[in-house]
């Protein structure tokens, strides 16, 4: 799996170029699949854009994006795992399953509980670390464990100019320089190609308990979830919806067995005023409700658009009322999944409630004017656009996935004009320069 000759820790010299002459990448029409970071940097520097980055190709959210496929899946392998320091580094193409299995072997896990998009989007393939980070794909534990962005300690990426850049590092606390790692996380392949990531991991709990209250309406459900999340019992999941056996409100506790037992009893007692609380039995026979919540199980294979709405929990009930159709609430009401008829502009209908809505699954052929990502206020949109222009001046990654047409937009006039990054001198620790410096520009 591991990409040969690429280990930077070993030596100072950039790895030798693999692959043929630069022109080769233009002749091949099929998806390109670099094996090393240097290889990828060269392809980005030389290819015409836009390049649609792909890890496992499992998270093709919303409307189709455009571009020639560039798969990062070949740049793979765990490069560091220190259970005693709660840190793991791996190349971006590493299958998530490989990482999760490695962690499980040491009694650890990815605490942010990455969502698997395959069931919802009807994709197949192998979810990768890079795709997970680029999508900031976070699950129900978000409220207590943070999102992917909170667990990324550092990463390396290739800019639109083919330069290799690193941000952050491998330690838990690091405020050295700007946090470009957070900017890259959740950038959906529109700023650069992530090549390696270091994550904070956490111990997996010894035991878990799920409490459920059946039959609450959204107002009562959010109230019960808020009460639970405002308690000292460390609730690590709070969801509401119909997972197949009628509407239930679910609350999760995790930790050492005696502690979970003790908190389960006390939380149940505290929630009694909200409705009849029962203990849900975790068994092999029943499907895991938290996996169903994480992956939006109720909407798998059901036709219609799927919206992902992030907002304050206290506004969830009003949002659900306006949606008026099937929903699944997570994050104590802070995240709503809604299934709607194709082409309905739910974003407009939820105006005034704050937060934002992403069209996670768009029905092919339905209203093409519906953007996948929410429009941003003008000032914020300008910052985002200018950042893209600085990370990717030639629009290599302008696939239209997050924002329509960034390709034509240059940096704002005035002020300092950046020198070409790819010609900035390299540090000893990485092959910071690839492509143009070696082969000359082709576009």
């Amino acid at each position, binding site marked *: 799996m591991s990409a040969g000759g690429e280990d930077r820790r070993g030596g100072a010299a950039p790895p030798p170029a693999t692959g043929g002459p630069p022109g080769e990448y233009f002749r091949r029409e099929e998806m390109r699949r670099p094996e090393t970071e240097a290889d990828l940097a060269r392809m980005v520097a030389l290819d015409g854009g836009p390049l649609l980055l792909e890890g496992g190709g499992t998270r093709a959210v919303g409307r189709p994006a455009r571009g020639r496929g560039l798969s990062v899946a070949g740049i793979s392998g765990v490069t560091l795992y220190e259970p005693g320091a709660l840190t793991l580094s791996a190349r971006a193409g590493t299958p998530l399953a490989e990482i999760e299995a490695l962690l499980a072997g040491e009694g650890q896990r990815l605490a942010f509980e990455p969502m698997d998009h395959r069931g919802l989007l009807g994709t197949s393939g192998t979810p990768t670390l890079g795709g997970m980070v680029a999508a900031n794909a976070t699950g129900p534990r978000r409220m207590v464990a943070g999102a992917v962005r909170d667990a990324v300690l550092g990463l390396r990426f290739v800019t639109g100019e083919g330069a290799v850049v690193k941000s952050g590092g491998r330690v838990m606390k690091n405020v*050295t320089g700007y946090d470009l790692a957070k900017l890259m996380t959740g950038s959906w392949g529109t700023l650069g190609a992530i090549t390696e990531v270091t994550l904070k991991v956490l111990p997996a709990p010894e035991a878990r308990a799920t409490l459920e209250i059946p039959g609450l309406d959204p107002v009562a459900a959010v109230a019960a979830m808020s009460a639970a999340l405002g308690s000292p019992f460390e609730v690590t999941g709070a969801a509401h919806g119909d997972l197949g056996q009628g509407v239930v409100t679910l609350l999760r506790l995790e930790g050492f067995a005696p502690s979970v037992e003790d908190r389960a009893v006390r939380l149940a007692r505290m929630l009694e005023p909200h409705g009849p609380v029962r203990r849900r039995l975790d068994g092999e026979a029943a499907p895991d409700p938290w996996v169903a919540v994480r992956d939006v199980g109720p909407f798998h294979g059901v036709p219609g658009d799927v919206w992902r709405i992030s907002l304050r929990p206290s506004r969830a009930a009003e949002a659900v009322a306006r949606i008026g159709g099937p929903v699944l609430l997570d994050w104590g009401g802070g995240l709503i999944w809604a299934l709607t008829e194709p082409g309905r502009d739910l974003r407009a209908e939820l105006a005034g409630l704050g937060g934002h809505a992403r069209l996670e699954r768009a029905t092919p052929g339905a209203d093409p004017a519906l953007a996948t990502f929410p429009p941003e206020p003008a000032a914020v949109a300008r910052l985002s656009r200018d950042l893209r222009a600085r990370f990717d001046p030639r629009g290599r990654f302008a696939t239209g996935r997050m924002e329509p047409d960034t390709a034509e937009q240059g940096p704002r006039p005035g002020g300092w004009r950046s020198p070409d990054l790819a010609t900035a001198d390299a540090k000893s620790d990485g092959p910071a320069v690839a492509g143009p410096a070696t082969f000359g520009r082709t576009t």
Partner: protein
Amino acid sequence: MDMPSPDAGALARRPALLAELAAVVARDALISDPVGLRAYECDALTAYACTPLAVVLPGSTGEVAAVLRICHAAGVPVVPRGAGTSLAGGALPTADCVVLGVARMTEVLEVDTADRLIRVQTGRTNLQVTAAVEEAGFFYAPDPSSQLACAIAGNIAMNSGGAHCLKYGVTANNLLGVTLVTMEGEVMEIGDGHLDAAGLDLLGLICGSEGQLGVVTEATLRILPQPEGARPVLMGFASAEAAGACVADIIRSGVLPVAIEFMDRPCIEACEAFSGAGYPDCEALLIVEVEGSEDEIAATLRRVLAVAAAHDPVATREAADADEAARIWLGRKSAFGAMGQLGDYICLDGTIPVSQLPLTLRRMSELAQARGLRVANVFHAGDGNMHPLILFDANTEGQLETAEALGADILRLCVEVGGCLTGEHGVGVEKRDLMTAQFSAGDLEMQMRVKDVFDPRWLLNPAKVFPLAASAARREAAA
């Protein structure tokens, strides 16, 4: 340490600038007399000081925007300031700058315990945020030791941490939204009460940007329910290696304490002499704090002690009640004061991978010996964030410089073993010129491009974070 020479033009335009500023803020909010300015000459990195052109202390976001528009039009640099407790010189003025302080903006704008958030003006101190939600049973988790004085503004700009961030994370993990005013005076809202960004994670970028991207005037912060209880255990070890190995084993065992603090012998002795906390006579000690219900605490501490037993602790002390807990923390909390009794010191802030702790401690004492100085260590061991204290005598000619050189040696060592230059205090001016030890020119170029986007003329806190040589062309293009 070098600072860019002041812009003569800005100095010459001072009278006109003062008149313009006076027109947009309250009368007592503009400080321009030498005595008044003195209080703003430096932050907690007191070795460096410089009198600014003026200080403004606006009372609202609108006034902040007006001040910034004036400075932008005049081409005058602005140094944002919270409470001035930065240990990195982040709030250090230049002679040609206006210091823009948010200390008068201290209001609580909203508390919502159902949504578990608070919205405040950023001049409010860290401790006063918790104070506003305490009665409702909540707290604001990031707790820098300076929390009595430091403002949320500085916490956001430095992405500050605290003793309890092993469990609760640092500022960035607890920040939901900000009101940001750009150097051009444009006001924008980034984030709100929801948990994730609509587009690019600009909030994550702004947090920790050291006042270089915009002035943060309001913030929405996550608040958490108070734990039922918390209790520490203290364990002494015969060697720093044993204590370091114990830290890794505790973490590996699946226990996630809220804090693991480490002190070495020089520090233990100083604290003992200063506070009489009754610490054991040993080479290194750990204070491990866990949270939960009484039963849970007892069970978790049993696990911690079982793990520690393999490392032959020379002493263990479990707090039976709040009084004993306070006594265990007493020495640790007075560590900086205690070190102050020993003479002058520089407090470093590098982070290392926990696995490199024994090696780093050994190499650090070799480096200190080579320069003829002493180093004491007290730090957050669970996350590898070290605070080596270099002891020196400021009255001895050349010792400050020697101590600074040793500091640079130690920070380079942190980078070399896989860590970084600063875990929570920020780069400021202090570590600015060491940035090339951690980042390539290309890495720094990308960071500077971010500043280009937010502040194209490089007027906001321009002489910080980046090596002066690296940022020179940009700063000069703006002038």
